[in-house]
């Protein structure tokens, strides 16, 4: 750089400038640095905040500019003036430009592109006379990349070292002289918040302006290898940091680091994850049980009685309307609503784990386990989301770059046990295993994970043998105390979704089930006055019932509920409740009567091996197609062929597993 730019060159670019940038012919100094290194604070400190801010002509990039007084005349004290700047007037001020924050000259944003163009224009005559790179002493590696790039061209460079106080708190000592030697450019320690070092920086700038430009730092010929070129810069930075800084032997360990050492450990991490989830399910089932019983008594008692009284009062007593309201809506939707406390507790606990930062660690643990068994690393996220709901989980497979990974993961998501299935587990666990309901629910989630693993491995071994690994790195947030407001918002948001389901698709399903249960088949009864065992609903269910006899739940009541469960898993409970309400309405006045009726049917269909049959039923429920919304989402994401293939896999796996569980259980019992 033999010909220097001047303030008049740069000022001419500022058509919107409020006045001259600096005295005509004054040297131009550009202030650059990565974002958040204190560049603008330094700019204000140096110039007294007398900045003019405006968009650079032809761009939307905002550039600050101001006059900066520096002892330019002192430069004559420098003995070697060969090649020194030849600006018009060696006055006492320079034009200082505050360029947009840029980590690197390899621009990936308009701001960085602008900074690159201004610092490295095609015509060397347009370059600033001097570049001040602002570097954060507490994070030198991040700051020095720009220095390394700027030093690859001939030019005057001064490094302003900020954040020394932060570095000192982190016990990082920077030897400024050694850093000067390593970087090949003057280094000045500044503290712009307190105005410390401003004069030193001004002096260093003046002296540099009085000297010839620094020669470009030598680099090996890397033949256009982009990675090798960047790596050479990093090695240069590492050498400079090693030589010029003294850091604590070990990185300061935060509380998060200490906890993570245990929580994300390869073997202990999964155990802690399982223990945490066990506690979640125990708390959920234990705390919700009394509330659930209360709501059950409310709907089957006073609410049903009041509805009958009101309908009788308006002349609809004993009509099909009463049947629909009491046996349909109140029995079906009311039963579902008894699960609101359970869902609320479960959602609150999961939100607590998420907001505290633990769930991110669980993702690490899960991911590691998935890698061990050869599944794509990034697939863990959709699968974890699937435990809330399969629909957004399948949409989340879009994060996977490989189409085979997307298809495989979308096929596995239905095996993750969504919260809709939780309500059915809880009902059955409370009915058949009242003393260990939490353990049973926990076991169902473990079986869900087992299904994902086994089916994933089976598909990978048969369909996608060449599937590659996909490395993944997770930037874990620090642990934080949960925010009650966020917990409340998240819990209510999800609960609202549950209530919306209950008031929307479940009401429609309840109406459809009631209609089918009201249509007589075989000449017995009349519309809305027919035993459910003689209805179209029972007739349709009975055609499929023999298929499930080997699994121990070959009774039409259970099979009918499973069929309705194709619409949504919550509908399993509502349709079950409707079936028994119509069948034996008087007995359902007492809380827990639904459970008694279900228990009796399972005992009959399993030949007395009730426990094995219930486990088989729950496992079938876990593995077969989750709901129509999931199917629709799969259809959209992976196409009809794979969706139908997935349904086939789910039904096959569900049936085989259910039969195996019942048959083995029957032998053992």
């Amino acid at each position, binding site marked *: 750089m033999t010909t220097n730019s001047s303030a008049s060159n740069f000022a001419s670019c500022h058509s919107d400038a409020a006045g001259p940038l600096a005295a005509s012919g004054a040297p131009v100094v550009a202030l650059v640095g990565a974002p958040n290194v204190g560049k603008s604070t330094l700019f204000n400190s140096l110039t007294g905040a007398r900045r003019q801010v405006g968009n650079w002509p032809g761009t939307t990039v905002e550039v600050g500019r101001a006059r900066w007084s520096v002892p330019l005349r002192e430069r004559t004290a420098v003995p070697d003036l060969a090649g020194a700047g030849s600006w018009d007037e060696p006055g006492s001020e320079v034009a200082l430009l505050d360029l947009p924050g840029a*980590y*690197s000259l*390899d621009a*990936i944003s308009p701001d960085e592109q602008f900074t690159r163009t201004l610092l490295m224009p095609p015509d060397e005559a347009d370059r600033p006379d001097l570049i001040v790179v602002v570097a954060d002493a507490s*994070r030198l*590696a*991040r700051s020095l*990349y720009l220095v390394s790039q700027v030093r690859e061209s001939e030019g005057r460079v001064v490094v302003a070292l900020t954040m020394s106080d932060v570095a000192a708190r982190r016990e990082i000592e920077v030897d400024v002289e050694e850093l000067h030697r390593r970087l090949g450019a003057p280094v000045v320690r500044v503290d712009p918040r307190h105005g410390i070092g401003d004069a030193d920086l001004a002096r260093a700038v003046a002296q540099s302006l009085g000297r010839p430009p620094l020669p470009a730092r030598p680099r090996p010929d890397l033949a256009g290898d982009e*990675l090798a070129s960047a*790596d050479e810069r*990093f*090695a240069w930075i*590492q050498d400079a*940091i090693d030589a010029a800084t003294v850091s604590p032997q070990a990185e300061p360990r935060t509380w998060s680091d200490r906890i993570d050492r245990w929580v*994300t450990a390869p073997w202990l991490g999964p155990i802690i994850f399982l223990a945490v989830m066990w506690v979640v399910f125990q708390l959920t089932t234990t705390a919700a049980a009394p509330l659930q019983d209360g709501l059950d008594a409310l709907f089957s008692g006073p609410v049903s009685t009041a509805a009958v009284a009101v309908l009788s009062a308006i002349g609809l007593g004993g009509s099909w309307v009463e049947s629909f309201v009491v046996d349909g809506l109140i029995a079906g939707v009311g039963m579902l609503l008894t699960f609101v406390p359970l*869902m609320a507790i479960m*959602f609150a606990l999961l*939100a607590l784990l*998420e907001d505290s*930062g633990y769930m*991110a660690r*669980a*993702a690490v643990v899960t*991911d590691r386990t998935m890698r061990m068994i050869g599944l794509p*690393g*990034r697939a863990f*996220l959709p699968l974890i*989301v699937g435990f*809330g*709901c*399969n*629909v*957004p989980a399948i*949409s*989340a497979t*879009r994060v996977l*770059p490989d189409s085979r990974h997307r298809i495989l993961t979308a096929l596995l998501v239905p095996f993750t046990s*969504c*919260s809709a299935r939780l309500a059915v587990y809880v009902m059955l666990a409370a009915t058949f295993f009242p003393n260990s309901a939490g353990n049973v629910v926990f076991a169902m989630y473990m079986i869900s994970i087992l299904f994902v693993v086994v089916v994933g491995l089976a598909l990978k071994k048969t369909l996608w043998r060449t599937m590659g690994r*996909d*490395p*993944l*790195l*997770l*930037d*874990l*947030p620090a642990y934080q105390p949960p925010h009650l407001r966020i917990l409340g918002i*998240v819990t209510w*948001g*999800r*609960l*609202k*979704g*549950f209530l*919306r*389901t209950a008031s929307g698709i479940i009401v429609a399903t309840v109406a459809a089930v009631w209609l089918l249960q009201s249509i007589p088949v075989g000449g017995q009864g009349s519309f809305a006055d027919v035993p459910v065992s003689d209805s179209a609903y029972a007739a349709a269910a009975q055609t499929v019932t023999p298929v499930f006899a080997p699994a121990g739940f070959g009774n039409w009541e259970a099979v009918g509920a499973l069929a309705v469960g194709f619409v949504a898993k*919550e509908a399993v409970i509502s349709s079950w409740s409707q079936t028994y309400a119509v069948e034996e309405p008087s007995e359902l006045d007492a809380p827990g009567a639904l459970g008694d009726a279900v228990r009796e049917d399972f005992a009959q269909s399993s030949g007395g091996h009730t426990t094995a049959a219930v486990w088989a039923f729950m496992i079938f429920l876990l593995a077969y197609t*989750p*709901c129509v*919304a999931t199917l629709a989402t799969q259809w959209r994401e992976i196409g009809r062929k794979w969706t139908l293939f997935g349904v086939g896999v789910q039904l096959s796996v569900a049936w085989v597993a259910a039969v195996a569980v019942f048959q083995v259980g029957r032998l053992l019992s």
Partner: protein
Amino acid sequence: MSAGPLRVVLEAVQAGSLTSNEIHRSTGLSMDMIRTSLDQLVRMGYLSAEAMATACPPSGCGSCGSASAQTGTCSTGPVLLGLSLTRRAS
């Protein structure tokens, strides 16, 4: 030429390190250098970065109790920065 910090970090990710702490333990590089290297690898396209959430979105999807609009991510809960390898070093 021996591998510099950038290549060392890339190799650690390829070898299966899951967090910055793991890279720190396996390479001995400072966390500042590791984070800077990861950012650089993302900028160069060797890794892709994506903010991810573990939580379901808070509005319902009409088919399931806890679900929502089909976005797959949401703004609540801790956000993970997922970095995945997008191209291999020669």
